[in-house]
């Protein structure tokens, strides 16, 4: 049930560009990613492959991003898979499979080329099978202390390279939700299932659907705010299991701590609201009635699960709590005010700002405005050509279409065509209130609800 892809690290929309002219262009073969992985895994020369998802073609490669004269490049047609052993800078078990590029010992001595027999003669000569290459640290004799090398120092024959075990290389803080290390085994030693595969276990945590959870390859992660990082296993009889990862000695300082309002999803909210908006008191986090749960203060030390205050320990949409009402398990605390997230206004405008000619050129979110004459990242419907009289200079905020909400601009953010600027109405600036001349208006098109028209009873 282990996928051959488990040996590979995937980089989406990426291509490996190699410069060496002496190597023949790699062949294109048909196959799924898993079939390509199988071929590459069984080929001694292969260290990576490109996979074109659309045409289902793969290209086996004898190099990786760490090879000389090779570089990564964006390419939406390819996904790049590289053998993990060549990329990892930590070791699994005794590091026999380590193929990284460390070439100095733990005391900083430079390693002797495996090909060379001076200053130290030896019998470990490179071959296609043993992975000995250049002067990189390796473990050809399964030494318990991990990869080592002969040194260029005539007085010191060989020395360990001191490469850490993966579970110790990157530690985790709190519950490991931010852990992005490369441990890919559970605490009982079972290999993890890839997050982008649905076998042997079907699961909801697609990497595309949770882009912020770092669900790379088959590394241990914590996408659901469990107590520790975990993974689905390649053992069909065991769906998921925790991983053993070292806890950092120093706890990371929580960001965005707020008390009177909440920012983003409110993970940093530390205020004292403890009643739901429908008036039901929240349940204390350190009790299991009326609702049993696993969010206990001692298991989630960084989440400040004090008393019965609204909190967001699992990355939900907003602070929430278990309620003291037996039939209502949880309730969001959306009634807590959101912290303002706009830049302070540096200038002001009169009316709707149609005569504003100042020099503010940032949106209220701090995004730089797109020059009015530019055609990218947004093709403008309003430009100096269409509105010659509107003073559309450079990328200054303006109001060429008399937008009732003030000066605006096209933005340099491809995802935000336009937005309003960090300018506010001048105090004393009089704009007629909509309540002064409310007159009757007739509507035609949408909004018709058939059964309503016959005024039938419900």
């Amino acid at each position, binding site marked *: 049930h282990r996928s051959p892809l488990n040996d590979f690290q995937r980089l989406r929309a990426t291509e490996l560009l190699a410069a060496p002219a002496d190597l023949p262009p790699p062949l294109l073969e048909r196959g799924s990613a898993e079939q390509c992985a199988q071929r590459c895994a069984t080929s001694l020369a292969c260290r990576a492959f490109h996979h074109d998802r659309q045409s289902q073609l793969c290209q086996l490669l004898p190099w990786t991003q760490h090879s000389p004269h090779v570089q990564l490049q964006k390419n939406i047609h390819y996904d790049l898979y590289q053998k993990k052993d060549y990329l990892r800078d930590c070791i699994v078990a005794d590091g026999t499979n380590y193929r990284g590029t460390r070439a100095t010992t733990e005391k900083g001595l430079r390693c002797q080329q495996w090909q060379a027999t001076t200053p130290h003669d030896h019998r470990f000569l490179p071959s296609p099978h043993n992975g000995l290459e250049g002067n990189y640290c390796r473990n050809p004799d399964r030494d318990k202390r991990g990869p080592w090398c002969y040194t260029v120092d005539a007085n010191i024959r060989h020395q360990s390279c001191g490469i850490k075990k993966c579970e110790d290389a990157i530690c985790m803080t709190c519950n490991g939700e931010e852990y992005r290390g490369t441990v890919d085994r559970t605490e009982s030693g079972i290999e993890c299932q890839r997050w982008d595969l649905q076998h042997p276990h079907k699961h*909801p945590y*697609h990497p*595309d*659907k*949770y*882009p*912020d959870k770092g669900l790379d390859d088959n590394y241990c992660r914590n996408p659901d705010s469990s107590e520790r990082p975990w993974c689905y296993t390649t053992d069909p009889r065991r769906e998921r299991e925790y991983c053993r990862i070292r806890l950092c000695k120093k706890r990371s300082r929580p960001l965005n701590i707020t008390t009177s309002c909440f920012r*983003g*999803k409110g993970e940093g909210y530390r205020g004292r609201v403890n009643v*739901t*908006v*429908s*008036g039901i008191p929240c349940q204390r986090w350190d009790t299991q009635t009326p609702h049993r749960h696993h969010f206990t203060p001692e298991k989630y030390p960084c989440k400040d699960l004090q008393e019965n205050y609204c909190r967001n320990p699992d990355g*939900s*949409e*907003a602070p929430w709590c278990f309620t003291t009402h037996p*039939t*209502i398990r949880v*309730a*969001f605390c*959306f*009634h807590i005010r*959101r912290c303002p*997230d*706009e830049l302070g206004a540096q200038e002001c405008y009169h009316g709707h700002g149609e005569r504003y000619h100042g020099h503010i050129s940032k949106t*209220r*979110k701090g995004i730089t405005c797109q020059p009015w004459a530019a055609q990218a990242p947004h093709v403008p*419907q309003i430009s100096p050509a269409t509105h010659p009289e509107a003073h559309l200079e450079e990328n200054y905020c303006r109001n060429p*279409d008399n*937008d*009732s*909400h*003030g000066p605006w601009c096209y933005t340099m*953010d491809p*995802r*935000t*065509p*336009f*937005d*309003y600027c960090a300018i506010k109405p001048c105090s004393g600036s009089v704009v007629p*209130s*909509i*309540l002064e001349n*409310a007159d009757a*208006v*007739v*509507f*035609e*098109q*949408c*909004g*018709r*609800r*058939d*059964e*309503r*028209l016959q005024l039938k009873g*419900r």
Partner: protein
Amino acid sequence: IVGGQPGNSPWTVSIRNRASVHFCGGSLVNEQWVISTRQCFSSCDANLTGYKVQLGTLFKDPSPGDPDEQTIPITRIVCGPSESQLVMLKLARPASLNRRVALICLPPERYVVPMGTICEIAGWGETRGTADSSVLNVARLPVLSHSECNKALHGRLKESELCTAPLRAGVGACEGDYGGPLACLTADCWVLEGVITPSRVCARTDQPALFIRVSLYVDWIHKVMKM
């Protein structure tokens, strides 16, 4: 919705997070655009991959075989002017309109709903035991004049807010309804006059309920859809 009853509101949509849990409401104003409230979303450039809207069904969590149910991914969020508390959500593909799914009209710019107009809120939010919270509930509320409401709120009412009168029975929106519609039947047409936003307490019997006045932002809504 507290104090409501099961009903039909074909422009009301359920907004679901990555775990497919309903957390807010919205209104379908165009085949590919839903209007909701800023309070429901973590930021104006939030990555909404995995977030969806569900429409075409009366059930909060319909069975897989529900014939009219549509689930459409959300691809973009656009925040409204600063005071508006509004957001526009672009859908990955247009919703298909049928007897269960309809658009709701937008009012003309700066239109003021006459006092006493009977409007309707709708949503799958908290019912506080007053109705079946597994289906869409609706409730009717009369519009309160701006002056009366401002008096009741000690002069703190903004022009961008619209009020409905409190009912003795305790009728109103609650947690899970936010972002949903206050729809008013005007000239034979259902019009989106208000958007539900969080209040300190649901369905108060002694204070007006506040909504975002949509007519003040209709120009922005059209501009976003046009841009």
